[in-house]
């Protein structure tokens, strides 16, 4: 829920008074609001949470983090489109804890 994913800014435009960037997350490109990171320009890396860039980071850190998040399986989850999210929900059991952390804790406590 609170993960921010690093990506590379490929283009910056202005839409309805907002600074909007096209940000590439290891192949998946999303529209991202850059209003909170005025210092970020095309070619820079930034970490993005729910469509908003919140911090500039260096390329090496970004690429490492992207690789780690991909290995941990969180990248696909964070960047899934609407169709994929509904498809996942259709298979998922009801849960108060969508990321499963609490369920895993529960299992761990009992085993």
């Amino acid at each position, binding site marked *: *829920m*609170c*993960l*921010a994913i690093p990506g590379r800014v490929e283009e910056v435009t202005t839409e*309805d*008074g*907002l600074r909007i960037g096209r940000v590439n997350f290891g192949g998946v490109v*999303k*529209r*991202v*609001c850059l*209003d*909170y*990171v*005025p210092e970020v320009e095309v070619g820079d890396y930034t*970490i993005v*949470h*729910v*469509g*908003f860039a*919140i*911090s500039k*980071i*260096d390329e090496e*850190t970004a690429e490492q*983090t992207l*690789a*780690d998040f991909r*290995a*941990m399986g969180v990248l696909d989850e964070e960047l*899934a*489109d*609407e169709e994929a*999210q*509904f498809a*996942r*929900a*259709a298979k*998922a*059991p*009801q*849960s*108060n*804890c*969508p*990321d*499963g*952390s*609490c369920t*895993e*804790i*529960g299992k*761990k*406590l*009992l*085993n």
Partner: protein
Amino acid sequence: MKYLTEFRNGEIAQRMAREIALITTRRWKIMEVCGGQTHSIIKNGIDQMLPAAVEMVHGPGCPVCVTPLELIDKALAIAAQPRVIFCSFGDMLRVPGTEGDLFQVKGRGGDVRVVYSPLDAVDLAVKNPDKQVVFFGVGFETTAPANAMSVHVAKRRGLKNFSLLVSHVLVPPAIEAIMSAPGNQVQAFLAAGHVCSVMGYWEYPPLADKFGIPIVVTGFEPLDLLDGIRRAVLQLERGEHRVENAYERIVTYAGNLEAQKMLAEVFEVRDRAWRGIGVIPNSGWRLSAAYRAFDAEERFQIAGIRTVESPLCHAGDVLRGALKPAECPAFAKQCTPRHPLGATMVSSEGACAAYFNYGRFLSAEELANAGAVHG
């Protein structure tokens, strides 16, 4: 540890874990308050790498888990209305209210959409002037700037058909509440890295001083977590209680000032109920007076919500002494302090919660045999 052994830095991780074991001379309890960190700790087996004396305690770091059932019920009631487009992040779809969840509301004809950004919901409002578009804004400080901007943009564009259902909670007041609770055993905190990327960590030194606890700003990746834990243990062993930043590549002391400026304009601090914990003073945000017109709770005035906790719950029997907590079929299965089905598990002083916490240190078999303990 299934994944960490293949992790690119597996060897470094093992070395860090050995270092933590070397510097540890006493038992320590360290809490993280971030679902992402909890997930990473469990998934990567980091707690299993640590010496037995260092225990990670998983705090209320999941914003969905602490959202009161009543608010989930309100979301479901609004989403089911005709001429409403109800937008949310995907992870809310299967969160159960008293009756059903958002995915089921969609199945019954409700217009429920998953968006990537709250700004996508604002776009939907622009494109659908004959519909009310509601965005379910659930989250900690990390998510709040995005939700704040959506309301700010909606106001600037004069949109009458966009509103935000706000469920925002704040980390520092939760730390204060946990440390102030009678019987608290937590001795140090890992502060959530991405929360701090927005808020900085200027709010934490007063907490470290007041309670004499180390607080280490920590990231999510295995090495980040091990480094955060190592630094916390080092402070504990030395009898220090400072705020340290172990996530310098992302987090600054001041945080993101642009985002904080927007938060201060759009939101104001309020007391807030945390499911499973109770009301924590000044621990949430609501829309400020200038933006109150965009509050979905005000706009829809959902009345008559009868929040009913689960029928699996036998709290009444437990209270009457007819059933011991561990004899309840839901105990520690569907029902835990984090996902309480009833009042006895909701309150930290409730019999089931106390029993559960005691039972943490027992195996499932021992737990079942320990039925004679009075809660």
